[in-house]
């Protein structure tokens, strides 16, 4: 491996950028161990009481359960939509496939707030507001584009002759898919799943438009909590969410290598 030579000014610039991105996140960690009643930095006393308080808070706990269920369901649905869609886009290369790819990934370009409003307008007459189904559908609008991107890249990295070779050796299409295609794009699918789960789990903007008294997600409950109170409870939850995200990223990294899975390599 050849080591890239970077100049000092560039290194410093990158360092500053990292600091800009990460310092706010890092500040949350000491805050979560605060022994005080308000979000003040730096804390003057330390405790684990706010971590305990999470489990006492019914709304937060209910939000967590709903978010976990929601993210799981959204992830499964995303893969179910993404895999065939990406297959059509990459493999059949029909006239419409590029158009399809653009349509599927377009939501990534729109401001989420615009999307949320649009979804609200469409879902309201359908009676989907304040329902679990409504929020799940709303999240899919965000997760499917990510899923398509990652899965399509993984599929594009798999050479067609490899599948054809299997066919000439006697494998029927379904066998080609399960024995050749699926194992080779599994890293991509795992990345798509991790990404979908995380996007859904911490989604707030669209949820703001769709949540109601019966269903509300963890980020939504955190937001509500913050509106009325400013105690370090939020910091404690934030730290747990950071841990969850890091955990998911680590799993993907360990099994396939992050850069590989997002670049779609094998």
């Amino acid at each position, binding site marked *: 491996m050849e080591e890239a030579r970077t100049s000092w000014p560039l290194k410093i610039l990158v360092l500053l950028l990292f600091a800009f991105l990460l310092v706010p996140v890092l500040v949350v960690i000491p805050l979560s161990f605060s022994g005080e009643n308000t979000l003040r930095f730096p804390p003057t006393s330390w405790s684990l009481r706010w971590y305990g308080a999470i489990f006492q808070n019914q709304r937060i706990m209910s939000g967590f359960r709903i978010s976990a269920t929601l993210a799981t369901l959204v992830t499964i649905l995303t893969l179910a939509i993404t895999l065939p869609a990406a297959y059509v886009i990459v493999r059949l290369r029909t006239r419409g496939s590029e158009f399809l790819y653009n349509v599927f990934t377009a939501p990534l370009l729109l401001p989420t707030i615009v999307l949320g409003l649009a979804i609200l307008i469409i879902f309201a007459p359908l009676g989907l507001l304040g329902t679990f189904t409504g929020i799940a559908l709303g999240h899919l609008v965000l997760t499917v584009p990510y899923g398509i991107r990652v899965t399509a890249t993984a599929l594009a990295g798999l*050479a067609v*002759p*490899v599948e*054809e*070779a*299997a*066919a*000439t*050796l*006697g*494998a*029927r299409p379904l*066998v080609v898919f399960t*024995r*050749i295609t699926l*194992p*080779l794009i599994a890293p991509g699918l795992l990345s798509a799943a991790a990404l979908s789960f995380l996007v859904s789990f911490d989604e707030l903007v669209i949820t703001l438009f769709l949540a109601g008294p019966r269903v509300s997600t963890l980020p939504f409950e955190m937001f509500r909590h913050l509106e009325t109170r400013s105690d370090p409870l939020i910091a404690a939850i934030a730290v747990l969410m950071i841990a969850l995200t890091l955990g998911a990223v680590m799993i993907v990294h360990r099994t396939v290598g992050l850069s590989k899975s997002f670049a779609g390599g*094998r």
Partner: protein
Amino acid sequence: MATAQSAAAGDGAFLSLRGLRKVYTDFVAVENLHLDVPKGELIALLGPSGCGKTTTLRMIAGLASATAGHVMVGGRDITSAPPYDRDMGVVFQSYALFPHMTVAKNIAFGLQMRKVPRAEIDRRVAEAISLVRLNGMEERRPRELSGGQQQRVALARALVIRPSILLFDEPLSNLDAKLRDEMRTEIRDIQQRLGITAVFVTHDQSEALAMCDKVAVLNAGRLEQFGSPIELYEHPANPFVASFVGRVNRLPGTAAGTTVKVGAHDVILPKPMTGAVEVMVRPHRIALGGPSDTAPGANRVTGTISQVAYAGDLVQYGIDVGGTRWFVEQQTTAARPPEVPGTPVSLSWRVEDTLAFPAQG
């Protein structure tokens, strides 16, 4: 219907292509292709890049559908059979090994698909591995192998299923020259030992001539000539075949009977022709002599050496003959250094080494 067509096929043909045609939207890639491959023979599909070789091979394998025409194997029409029912082994240009499987698993795949018992799979995989001399590599992944080794795995994987027909798509084009020569001999040897019917796609004429029983020359989707290497080389059907299979000097002339005027020289033809013709002589069939040497009973022209390219085994001369550039190839010997530019020479060759075709256009 199938039997009627097979009756029309050539005697003893095992694989027959009957009027095969492939059209991509509005582009004709293969046009009305008829070909009969006898059982146990290795035939080449030879032609320049883009002439439809791969497309033809894919139609035989069932990986591409034929727009029209039929593919027959052993008298049976398989034109619409899917690839997994065709029992053909394919060696792809890119090898197309399964990257997530070991060498042994790659080779075993086709046998597993055929529900061959476990013990027999192990035995046949081991056999195939020693056939292609990959012993000790069983547990490696494709990416841990060299190009030549990957090529051997691809060959073993296609052979182990004992296919009725073996198809190769430029299998040696990604190997370096030395390995390519080795693999040629090896593939030919295995094919003959197993008596397997095979179609070998290549754009390399020396590969086609050296390896194959018969060669089909394709150009722009059409069959130009189908014959043995000797037929193709000594009796090319047209100028395209003459110049694609081996090198030639192409010279315009005007024929009257067996004599044709090429520039200021009279050249004798083996058979009479009239009008505008294209005369062709292969560079290595021409002998160089002194400017006043005579060559009784042979064709002879005189010129001046203008260019010398020494390649070790051969030396190629560019010779100016009355304003036209001729090429002549001579074997080198240690005893005699190559001629130098500016030397006046005579060029002579046997009458039967003179090819002539009616001028085109």
